[in-house]
């Protein structure tokens, strides 16, 4: 079956612009996660959704970052007024239901802020 998909796969933007990243989880998966991986670094947890609500937003690095999920499915991660330090690969993952179920990851969106 279809896995987690993310779009775009690559995004190059200028400093100060807003960007929107999209994640389509596996159908039926109620939990959705966003992570960030900077070059040479480990995964950094950003936000977790259970259904449409986000019980944990503690990982969002600043108020320029926001995320929403509608219909318990697609999620978008928005970064406003991008900075060069936002350059990273943004990974989305979904899991079946419980927060401790296996997470299935998408291929990621590589964001480059010039």
């Amino acid at each position, binding site marked *: 079956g279809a896995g987690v998909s993310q779009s775009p796969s690559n995004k190059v933007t200028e400093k100060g612009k807003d960007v929107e990243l999209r994640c389509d989880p596996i159908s039926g998966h109620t939990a959705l*996660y966003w992570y960030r991986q900077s070059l040479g670094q*480990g*995964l*950094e947890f950003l936000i977790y959704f259970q259904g449409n609500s986000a019980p944990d937003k503690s990982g969002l690095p600043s108020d320029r970052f926001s995320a929403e999920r509608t219909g318990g499915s697609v999620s978008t991660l928005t970064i406003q007024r991008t900075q060069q330090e936002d350059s990273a690969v943004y990974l989305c993952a979904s899991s079946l239901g419980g*927060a*401790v179920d296996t997470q299935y*990851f998408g291929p*990621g969106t590589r964001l480059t802020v010039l």
Partner: protein
Amino acid sequence: SQQGEEDPQALSIQEGENATMNCSYKTSINNLQWYRQNSGRGLVHLILIRSNEREKHSGRLRVTLDTSKKSSSLLITASRAADTASYFCATDEHNDMRFGAGTRLTVKP
């Protein structure tokens, strides 16, 4: 915050050798998972071990868990060049999964 810290940060071995990576965590867990990430790819789930288990096997992978030491190890036996990847452990805390920084494994042919 990150939960689950792997060491070493980087490991380089010859094909055929065994590779051991370790993961430590700070709080109590219900389960611990290991993931692999090949360069430019997403993460792939390898194995899950529950807190009441001490050892699990999957093919050439062996995972141990010592809850008294709050640590886990991932052993890859008879390594292959294709095992070159970053390996991450993830633990559950506050009812979600948090990852460490990973171990970068390089297997030289």
